[in-house]
Every structure is written in structure tokens, then in C-alpha cells.
């Protein structure tokens, strides 16, 4: 299949490219990137006028739920949701049932993704068997099977010795250890950020310190053990400060955040509208924090302390999310709003250039996780996203099997027009 993308504004951070170029794709590869490609025989022509053409986005934090919770999401539906969000590569988290702590489960996911998926699926293995925090998983076997990193996401590795060993052991495979930073003793039973809002709503609080303390612990462990530490979904001002300092001191640490941590604050749950008060679609871990934290997260994204933006797509059924706030599960979906929220709240609000913004989903994750995607260089795999940063649209339904999003009904900019994965159009409006 041949695709010719014309008149688009190409933004590729890997080549520091920001100009009007035409792009020719053939046999799954990028063949030509030139200021003008008139015609190519048999090619499907896409007119990308007014649109940005960028490398297909990489979402390093997704829960596809398969195997185990197919009522929430499957590889088939999750990858289609990703495609609808302009994402061509997703990392799926290991807290499935069974847990991705063995070769068989990795192979099952890769096979399913090949058969039923529409975008690239890269499994992430668990740090410990069963995500119980007790015994290391067979990380070497997992690597051989194809994982791109290890994490116990959803759960922290509370035992510092095990975290140390994980960082040390994974070094020989050059596998990043992705850390979900939460001191479980401090966050115990908490459901929202601890502060005035939790006090007023009578909900148990999760202090920001439960994150901060583990961020600093992991940084300290990383200087003891070495290894590649990647801290995921950071939400607090102090996390940003500690990571910024660690990076300056030369610690091998990277991190990501999710759009809700720079778009929403805990005030949402207190909402002026009745439907927002105790809205379980604003219940996630880490919880929504304060404006001060939001400002610090944006600052961290601007100065490069925060390397990536990930969705932390966490689908849950309507039944589960309709429960009382304390009983509803943590998490919101995010694949389809990842780019639009980032465009609307970072680029359109003049917080950063498109080049920098796109690097958070392309070159940066590609570098951290040693991927062969995330660029538009000739000869590379043709993962391409085309979106219109100026076009406003209403978020009214989702491709995902679940709809637990606080952004339903929002007007956002950055409409996805086409998603091309391995040279095939996997989504178009």
C-alpha cells in the first residue's frame, strides 16, 4: 500500500523538523520526505492541509485489561481507541489476570495484538511475581519474550531491598524499571488528595507526601543500584523538584505525567455542578492534586524534567464506576484525549511549542525505552499521526469499551484526522 500525504506541516522532533513537507509511504516504510512530491502511481493521497503530520504517538502507560478484564477493555478495542487518539504504539501494563510475569502471558498478548490489534502493543512485565512485591519476576525471560520494561504499576514496590534488586538486575538487560510511587502506609484507604477538599467531602485523603517519599526513595536507590529508573504518572510539585534535582546530579532517572495532572485539580470533585460532586470519573491514583501541583507539572514539562506524557488509560465499567466514591475503582480512560488535552492545555495555552510537545510522545519515550519508532526519517517504519491543532471538537463518545472519563462533553482542540500504523491507515475521521 502506498500513501502520499500532501500539504501537511511536518513536525518531527527527531530531526528538529517543523515545515511544510510531503510524505510518501510504501510497504510500511517512509520512503520520501520532500518539500513537494507531486504524484506517485497508485498511492492514496491524503490532503493534510492545515494539519500537523508527526510521528505516530507512543503511549507508554496503558491498561488494555486483556487477559482478565475483557469487560473493561480488550486488545482489539484498546488498540482501536489508541488509533482514534493518534497513538500507534501502546505499552500495556502488567496488572492483568494473569499478571504479565511470565513468558506465556507476554506471548499471548503479542499474538492477540497481531491478530486483533491495530496498533503496536509492547507489553511491560511485572517487577515482582503476581505484583505481590515479594519475589522478582523472571525478568530475563520476560525480556526475551519481548517486554520493553518492568513495573508493578498499580502497586508500589514497598520493600526497598526488592526495588534495589530490581534496578540492579534489570541493568544487564538494559530494561527500564517503571515505578508507581506511592507509600501504601501513608495512602492507606485514601481516595482523593488530602487537604481541604478531602476534609469537606469527608473522604479519606492521600497526602502528596505518599508520592514524594517514594520518588525520593527510588532516586536514592537508583544511585545505589544503578539501572534505568522511570517514574510514572507523577502528580506533585515535590516529585518534579526531586526529579529535577536528581537529573542535575546525573542520576539516571526519567519520568512521565498524564494529562489530568496538568488539566484538573482536586477542586473538580467538589464541583459547582451536582454531577461533578463525588464524580468517580475523577478518582484515580495518584489523585488529582492542587493548582500549585498543576503549575509545577507544567513547569516540569516545559523545562524537560518530565520527559513524557502518557495516558494512564485505565478503563472500568459503568457499573463499577457508578458505585459509592469509596468503593469505585481508581482510574480513568485517556487514549483518545491524550493528544487533544495536551494540545489544548499546553500548546494552545502557549506553554510549549508543538515540536517540544510532540517529543513527549515520540522521541523521548523512544529514547528511554530503546524503540525503533517515533520518527519520520526515510527508511523508518511508517507510523504517522495527522491532526489539526486548531480544529475544535466535542468529546461525545469513545471508541474504548469503557467511558470513565471526566472529559466527556468537553470541547478540545487537536482533532485527530488520520492514524497510520506500519503504513496502514488504522483510523480516519
Amino acid at each position: 500500500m502506498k500513501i502520499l500525504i500532501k500539504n501537511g506541516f511536518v513536525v518531527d522532533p527527531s530531526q528538529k523538523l517543523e515545515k511544510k513537507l510531503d510524505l510518501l509511504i510504501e510497504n510500511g516504510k517512509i520512503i520520501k520526505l520532500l518539500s513537494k512530491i507531486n504524484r506517485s502511481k497508485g498511492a492514496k493521497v491524503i490532503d493534510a492541509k492545515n494539519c500537523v503530520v508527526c510521528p505516530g504517538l507512543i503511549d507508554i502507560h496503558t491498561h488494555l485489561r486483556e487477559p482478565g478484564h475483557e469487560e473493561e477493555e480488550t486488545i482489539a478495542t484498546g488498540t482501536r481507541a489508541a488509533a482514534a487518539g493518534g497513538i500507534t504504539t501502546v505499552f500495556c501494563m502488567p496488572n492483568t489476570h494473569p499478571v504479565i510475569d511470565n513468558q506465556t502471558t507476554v506471548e499471548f498478548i503479542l499474538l492477540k495484538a497481531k491478530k486483533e490489534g491495530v496498533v503496536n502493543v509492547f507489553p511491560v512485565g511485572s517487577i515482582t511475581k503476581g505484583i505481590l512485591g515479594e519475589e522478582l519476576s523472571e525478568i530475563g525471560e520476560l525480556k526475551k519474550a519481548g517486554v520493553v520494561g518492568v513495573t508493578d504499576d498499580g502497586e508500589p514496590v514497598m520493600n526497598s531491598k526488592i526495588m534495589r534488586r530490581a534496578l540492579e538486575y534489570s541493568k544487564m538487560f538494559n530494561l527500564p524499571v517503571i515505578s508507581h510511587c506511592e507509600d501504601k502506609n501513608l495512602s492507606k484507604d485514601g481516595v482523593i488528595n488530602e487537604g481541604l477538599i478531602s476534609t469537606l467531602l469527608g473522604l479519606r485523603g492521600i497526602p502528596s507526601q505518599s508520592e514524594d517519599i517514594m520518588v525520593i526513595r527510588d532516586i536514592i536507590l537508583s544511585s545505589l543500584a544503578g539501572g534505568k529508573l522511570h517514574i510514572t504518572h507523577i502528580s506533585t510539585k515535590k516529585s518534579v523538584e526531586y526529579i529535577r534535582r536528581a537529573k542535575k546530579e546525573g542520576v539516571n532517572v526519567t519520568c512521565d505525567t498524564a494529562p489530568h495532572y496538568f488539566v484538573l485539580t482536586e477542586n473538580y470533585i467538589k464541583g459547582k455542578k451536582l454531577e461533578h460532586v463525588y464524580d468517580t470519573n475523577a478518582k484515580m491514583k495518584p489523585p488529582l492534586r492542587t493548582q500549585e501541583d498543576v503549575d509545577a507539572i507544567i513547569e516540569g514539562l516545559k523545562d524537560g524534567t518530565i520527559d513524557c506524557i502518557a495516558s494512564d488509560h485505565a478503563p472500568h465499567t459503568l457499573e463499577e464506576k457508578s458505585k459509592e466514591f469509596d468503593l469505585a475503582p481508581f482510574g480513568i480512560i485517556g487514549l483518545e484525549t491524550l493528544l487533544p488535552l495536551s494540545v489544548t492545555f499546553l500548546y494552545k495555552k502557549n506553554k510549549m511549542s508543538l515540536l517540544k510537545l510532540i517529543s513527549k510522545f515520540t522521541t523521548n519515550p523512544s529514547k528511554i525505552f530503546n524503540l525503533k519508532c517515533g520518527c519520520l526519517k526515510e527508511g523508518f517504519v511508517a507510523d504517522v499521526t495527522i491532526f489539526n491543532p486548531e480544529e475544535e471538537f466535542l468529546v461525545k463518545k469513545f471508541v474504548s469499551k469503557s467511558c470513565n472519563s471526566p472529559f466527556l462533553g468537553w470541547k478540545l482542540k487537536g482533532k485527530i484526522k488520520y492514524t497510520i500504523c506500519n503504513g496502514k491507515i488504522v483510523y480516519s475521521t
Partner: protein
Amino acid sequence: MTNKILFTKKHLLGLEDFTREEIKLILDTAKPFKNLFTRSIKKVPTLRGRSVVLLFYEASTRTRTSFELAAKRLSADTINIAVNVSSVKKGESLIDTAKTLESMKSDFIVIRHSYSGSPHILAKNVSSSIINAGDGFHEHPSQGLLDIYTVNEKKGRVAGLKVVIVGDILHSRVARSNLWGLTKLGAKVILCGPPTLIPKDVQKVSPSNIDIEYNLDKAIKDADVVNILRVQFERQMEHLFPSIREYSLLYGMNKERLSRAKNDVLILHPGPMNRGLEITSEVADSLNSVINEQVTNGIAVRMAILYLLSSVKE
């Protein structure tokens, strides 16, 4: 007529949502209802033909009885639904219960639930007026109102009074409703308890009207009102205080402490009491105690609540 202009709320979810004027209106409306109680026939036909569902997910004697009596004295029909808390997790979800009740077209649903925000789930899904009879540790607005009614009745005012709330503020819905109501009416509130039981940033609710004092003896000095909260034994397990014994020593209201307070200090307790722990019998049964009057006033206040909420619907 003036009532209808002033009162526009459909639900009573928490006193946080109510203005000073609305709170005053409820208190004023309760007065004539209380006067009814001295008559031999205590019933008025005001809410004849209306139905009130009492949906209690938590054990409650006084609140449920009080609402039931209030509804009956207004001639409304009452239906009791007592749900075992343990069945919440495995049984019908609250939202399904809400939809069932919606189909039954009840005018009011009075809900008590152990999770904060449960009345809001009903309010979002049901067209009935929702009255929060206590949710988790969020609010217990009718209790707050009856406490304030009692204080106002005894002291002739609320503004300018010094009110101490003692105990587990962190897990108390009674404390939160009192805090909103009292500060809106201009009282000075002193929250007293160990730092582990004082919720974060609570002073921000009304910085100039709220003080925090860990020492009960200091707190009750010059106090006009002391509202004593029930100790919840299970909190000891959460390392919030070392022992019931120590709690009782530090925060138990006894005769000796009472003797050092103002002569006319009012002692309130939302009940049920742990006599000998947070309050001694001597104090509970003293002349300063208005604990039994709180119960009587509770009915009048709840009649006022039902009456005002129903007037909005017309």
C-alpha cells in the same frame, strides 16, 4: 409566601450548600412545629398524600425515629427500608436501589449511609427530594441544624457564641455540619481533639471563626457551648490515639472539668453516648446538659426541613 421566595433548595445534602438566611429560615420554621408538641393532637395535615422513604444503610435509632415521627406529624406516609451494610458490597448497588425508588415515585428519600457522597448518587439519579441523614464522615445536616436550634433556643442567639466541638473531628459528619452552620451564623468554633483527629486544612473553612485547640481544659474556658462527639472505638486500631483510657483522660468531659467552665455552659452530645468515656453520667445528666432536648428539637427541625423542601416542589 415569603418562605417560597427565600427557600429554593430541592435537596438537603449538606449545610455547606445553605446560606445563612436559609438556615435561619429552617430554624424559624421549626419553632411553631415545636409548639405543636405540647398539644394533645400533634399532627398537622401539611404533607398529606406525600411519601417519605427512610433508606438506612447504617444502624440508627434516633435519627430514623425522629425523621419518621416528623413525617408522620406532617401526615406524610413513611416507608422504612433498612439495609444491612454488609449487603451493600454484594447485593444491589445503591444506584439500582435509587432507580427502584424512582419508579415508586416517593416525594422524599431520607438516606443514611456509611460512605460519603451516597446522597449525591441519589440526587443525581432520582427526581425525589433527597435528605441526607448522615453520609460517611461528610455531613449530617439535620443534626447540625438541631444542635444549632437547641443552642439558639437556650442562649437566644448563635452569633458571637463560643462553641467547642470535642472529639474525633476527622471522622465526624456531625462536626462538619455544625461547623458550617455555626460559622455561617457567626459563632466562634473551637475544634478540640488530638492532632491526629483534626482533619487537614479544616481551619480554611472559615479562618476567622475557627480555632483549633488540642487541650480541652483551655478550650472550654469561656465556652458557651460544648458539643461532645462520640468516641469510635475502631479508630484506636488506626493508630489515631494510643488507648481509649488515654483518650478518656485527655478528652473525657467530667464533673471537674465542667466545674471550671462557665456556669451556664450548654453540654450537647449527638448520641448515642459512651457514658464514662467521652462524657461522665454526672455531666450527661447535669443541669447544663441539653442532650434530651436535642432529641425533642430534632423532630421539630426535621418537620421544618420536610415542610420547606416540599414547598419548593409546588
